[in-house]
């Protein structure tokens, strides 16, 4: 199969989903789009079934505490034959961190979502077995959120103002 360009891919997605997706740019050639959690299952299935993005590379999350919707869930999906990747982001509000699972589309999403839940507390609705995976079962916090410091919070010698920031 011939290589698909980002423009063609974006065009196909826009013609299908119209304003339900937003382009966020293509840093280093990797097309990045944003969509909503209502549409994410449709977008992922469309990519897999119609556009040949058969390989789910990665699911992870990111936390921007200062944003209105602080939690981003990030999918990397890969069209192996066409040699093109796409990154999809969904942002969620802090009091409502629910998103539909992708494990019905790819079996491989199972542990990736468990890891994302484990570290960020994102609730993947419909996931068959949403338990912690790397941390201990009775842990009460989601450690990759920015409010949990790595080191003693009273330590000041690494504060930014010592470095002129």
């Amino acid at each position, binding site marked *: 199969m011939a290589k698909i360009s980002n423009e063609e891919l974006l065009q196909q997605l826009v013609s299908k989903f119209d304003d339900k997706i937003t382009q966020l740019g293509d*840093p*280093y050639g*990797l097309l*990045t789009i944003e969509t909503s959690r209502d549409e994410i299952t449709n977008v992922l299935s469309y990519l897999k079934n119609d556009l040949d993005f*058969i*390989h*789910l*590379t*990665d699911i*992870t999350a*990111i*936390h921007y505490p200062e944003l209105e919707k602080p939690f981003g869930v*990030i999918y*990397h999906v890969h069209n*192996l034959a066409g*040699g093109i*990747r796409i*990154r999809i982001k969904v942002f969620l509000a802090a009091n409502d961190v629910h998103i539909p699972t992708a494990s019905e589309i*790819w*079996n*491989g*999403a*199972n*542990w*990736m979502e468990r*890891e994302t839940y484990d*570290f960020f507390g994102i609730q993947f609705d419909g996931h068959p077995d949403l338990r*912690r*995976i*790397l*941390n*201990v*079962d009775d842990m009460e916090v989601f*450690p*990759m959120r920015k409010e949990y410091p*790595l*080191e003693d919070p009273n330590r000041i010698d*690494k504060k*930014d103002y010592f*470095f002129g*920031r």
Partner: protein
Amino acid sequence: MHNHLLITDNDPQSELSTLNLGPTHPATHGVFQNVLELDGERIVSGVSTIGYIHRAFEKIAEHRPFYQITPLTDRLNYCSSPINNMGWHMTVEKLLGIEMPKRVDYLRVIIMELARITDHIVCNGVLGVDTGAFTGFLYMMQFREHVYEIYEEICGSRLTTNIGRIGGFERNFNTIAFDKIRKFLKEFPVALREFEALFNRNRIFIDRTKDIAAVTAETALSYSWTGPILRAAGVDYDVRAQEPYSSYQDFDFEVPVGTNGDVYNRFLVRNEEMWQSLRIIEQAMEKLEKEDLSIFHAAVPEFYLPPKEEVYNNMEALIYHFKIVMGEIDTPTTEVYHAVEGANGELGFYLVNDGGRSPYRLHFRRPSFVNYQMYAPMSRGMVLSDAIINMSSLNVIAGELDA
């Protein structure tokens, strides 16, 4: 531990016996726990528990300047740490837009392919041990030692290498290193041929491995598999060929694929990959002769840690040294995903940068983690001894699994 079982006490199947395979068990090479429900010797269900050596690398990385993250990557797949190191350097170089000189690319290719060979030596050797043939493992292990000696000449360490820097290598390869590489290229093919002669048509080995844990390409893709185990199932996906990094496009090599994804196919694919790695190293050695021998890093003083003797005697080097160590370098606010072909599959680095001292978010796409999730489902219906072999041939490395 009770809540990890799939079968409850009231279930009629609770006549089955429960086996805790691991976390420390002589038959599992690393810290893996699988709680198995056994009907006699046959596995009815299994649950994998992982995370025993989780070290919070992603959290630590958010607090470290870029060059201090390299030692963290060592400890992911410690059987081939140079690939992880190079993958991380290349991610940062991609972020900063650094163009690498060809010679550095070729030197990196040599190191990465040597690392791939050591990783496959361990995996295939151990597979032999698990099927009852200790000879191959012992015999091949000395070549891993030879490769570690090459690492020692280049960076001074052996297992957790921290090899190279962002922008190149910390020092040039010396002649001893090249001599050792040439010696390895001469001696290793002989041993590999003998190793293959020992196993490839060995009746006992074939009986134990053929059609065991066979996986279709469709299932393998659905479980997001990458690397030799995906190729053994017949999918020719190799990051080196599809998205060439570090000048892999300059090399002539083949991507071996299997047919039915069983343990035997994975063994053959890994063996063939070692031959291809040797081919790549030989080509790289040839190409190096045409390059300027003095180049071992890119001319990017603002990102490349200067040699110590310059730091003490040269104003500019001192400034750059200070800026890099204190994390004061200017970096773009953007995000980057870079993947390399690790020994187990696609090793990806997803880096979100806010221009600060350390990454805003760094996520490792670890092939062992993604590949291993199919282990418990695919073990159902297998006899225990086959499940052990299956685990060896997946080549799951605990450090990479648990990050």
